[in-house]
C-alpha cells in the first residue's frame, strides 16, 4: 500500500432504518479515515448509532448512502480484512465448540495445512493468555475469559482491522482493566489496526491513539481528537497523568454538548 493512504475510509455514511413509525435516521452523515496500525476509539452518547456504524464497517449492514472503503475498494459485505468482537460474548461464542474449536472456526475455510492452522489457533489462544483452557467450553469460563476467547478468534482470522463493539461493557471493573491492557498489548506487539467502540469515556482515552466523538442522532463526527499520551500506558500512572484528566474532561464536555443538541455546523446538503 502506498504511504499515507488510509486503510479505511468512510465518506458521507448515512443509515436510515425503516420502521412501523416511519424512518429512523441512525447515522446522519459520517466521514473519517483511519491509517494502518491505528487504535481508534469511537465514543458517543447512548443511542447515537455506534453499533450501526460498526455493522456498516464490518459489512453486516448496507449503508443507505455513502461509502465505506477498505484499502481502496468498497465494502459491500463481510470482508476477510475485518474481524468483529461483539459485546455479547455469551451469544457470539458457540457453546457446543471448545475454546479451540471456536478460535478455529473462522480458519476452517482458509486454505491452510492442518499444522499451520493448529499453530495459528494455539498462537491466538496463547496471545490472550488462555493457553491452559483450550479444551474447555466457553460456558465453563468467566465472562472476562470468554471475551478473551472472542478476541483470540478475531486475531486468529488475521484481519487488517479488528472491530470491537463495546466488548467490555458486561464485565466487572477489574476484569475490564485487564482486558483493556490486553487490547493495548495486542495493538503494540502485533500492530493490529483496531476500532474500539465504547460508551466509557475513560476507557476511550486510556486505550486510544485517537478518539472519534460522535454526536447525538442523526449522528455526525462531533470531534476527532488525537490522544497525545505516551504509548506505554499503565492503569495506575496513565490514569493519574494531568493530561489524561484534561483529555477525559474534554471528551466528557464534548459528549455533553453532543447530547444537548445538534452540532454547531449546519448540516451539509446531500
Amino acid at each position, binding site marked *: 500500500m502506498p504511504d499515507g493512504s488510509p486503510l479505511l475510509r468512510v465518506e458521507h455514511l448515512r443509515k436510515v432504518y425503516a420502521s412501523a413509525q416511519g424512518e429512523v435516521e441512525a447515522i446522519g452523515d459520517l466521514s473519517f479515515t483511519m491509517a494502518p496500525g491505528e487504535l481508534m476509539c469511537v465514543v458517543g452518547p447512548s443511542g447515537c448509532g455506534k453499533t450501526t456504524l460498526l*455493522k456498516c464497517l*464490518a*459489512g*453486516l449492514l448496507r449503508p443507505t448512502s455513502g461509502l465505506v472503503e477498505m484499502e481502496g475498494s468498497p465494502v459491500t459485505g*463481510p*470482508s*476477510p480484512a*475485518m*474481524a*468483529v468482537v*461483539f459485546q*455479547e460474548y455469551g*451469544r*457470539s461464542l*458457540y*457453546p*457446543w*465448540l471448545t475454546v479451540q474449536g471456536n478460535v478455529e*472456526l*473462522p480458519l*476452517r*475455510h482458509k486454505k491452510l495445512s492442518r499444522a499451520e492452522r493448529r499453530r495459528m489457533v494455539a498462537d491466538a489462544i496463547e496471545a490472550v493468555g488462555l493457553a491452559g483452557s483450550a479444551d474447555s*467450553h466457553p*460456558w*465453563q469460563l468467566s465472562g472476562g475469559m470468554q471475551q478473551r476467547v472472542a478476541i483470540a*478468534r478475531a486475531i486468529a*482470522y488475521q484481519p487488517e482491522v479488528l472491530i470491537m463493539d463495546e466488548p467490555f461493557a458486561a464485565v466487572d471493573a477489574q476484569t475490564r482493566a485487564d482486558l483493556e491492557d490486553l487490547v493495548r498489548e495486542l495493538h503494540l506487539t502485533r500492530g493490529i489496526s483496531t476500532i474500539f467502540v465504547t460508551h466509557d469515556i475513560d476507557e476511550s482515552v486510556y486505550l486510544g491513539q485517537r478518539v472519534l466523538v460522535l454526536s447525538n442522532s442523526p449522528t455526525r463526527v462531533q470531534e476527532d481528537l488525537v490522544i497525545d499520551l505516551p504509548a506505554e500506558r499503565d492503569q495506575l500512572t496513565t490514569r493519574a497523568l494531568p493530561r489524561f484528566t484534561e483529555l477525559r474532561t474534554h471528551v466528557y464536555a464534548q459528549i455533553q454538548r453532543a447530547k444537548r443538541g445538534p452540532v454547531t455546523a449546519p448540516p451539509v446538503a446531500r
Partner: protein
Amino acid sequence: MTALGAKKARLPGPVLRAVENVLFALGLPVLTVLLWGIWSAGSTNRFFVGPLTILDAFRRTWIGPAFVDDVLPSLYRLALGLVASILLGVAAGVVIGRLRLLRELLEPLLEFFRALPPPVLIPVMMLLLGITDTMRVVVIVSGAVWPILLNTIDGVRATDSVMRETADSFRITRWERLWLLVLPAASPRIMTGVRQALSVALILMVISEMFASSAGLGYRIAYFQRNYLVAEMWSGILLLGLIGVLLAVAFGLVERRVLRWYHGMKEITRA
C-alpha cells in the same frame, strides 16, 4: 450446584448413593408386582392372570423362533421408520426453518397433516402401497416425522442473531454454517422432537401390524387376543413395554452425548 453438594454431604460415598438410586428406581415396581401376585392368586377371573403365569408365557412365547419371526422384523421396521423420520424431519425442518416464505406457505398444510391421526392412513396406504413392509414403514414415518419436523423448524428459526452475525462476519461457508451453527443450535429442539417421535413410532409399529398382517409383534398380540390366549397376550404387552423402556434408555445415552454442552451450560447457569 449447591443442591448437589448438599446431597453429597448427606451420604458417605458414591457406592451407597448408587444403591440408594437403584432401590428408589426398583422399589415401587417390585411392590406393585408383589401386590398384583397376591391379588391375582385369589382371583378366579381368567382374564386377570398373575405375574408368574405371564413370565412363564413370556418365556414360552418370545424366547425362541417367535423372536426371529415376529420381534426382529418389527424392530427392523421400527428402526427403519425412525431413521427415515429423523432424516426427513431434520432435512426438511432445516430448509423450511431457514426460508421464511416457504415456512409461511407451508404452515397451514403442516398443521393439517400433523392433526391427522396416522392410523386412519393405513387403509389408504394399503391401497396405494399394498400390504408390504414399505407400507408399514411409511405409516410409522407418517406419524413420527411431525414432532421432529416441527421442532427442527422452531429450533432452526430460533438460532441466535448474534451467532448468525458471527458466522456472517467470519464468512463461514454454507456447509460449515449448517454443521457448526444451524444443526448444533437446533439440536436441543431436535432431540425433544426425536424423544416424542419414539413413542409415536412404537405405537404405529404395533398398529400397522394389526391390519392384514401375518407376522410381527402387533399381529401376534392381536392374534392372542382373538384366541383368548390371555397370558400370551399380556406377555406381548410386557415385551412392548420393555422395548419402550430400552428405546428410552438408548435415547437417553445418545442424548447425553449429543447435548453434553447443553446440559453442562444449563447446570452452570442454574448454579
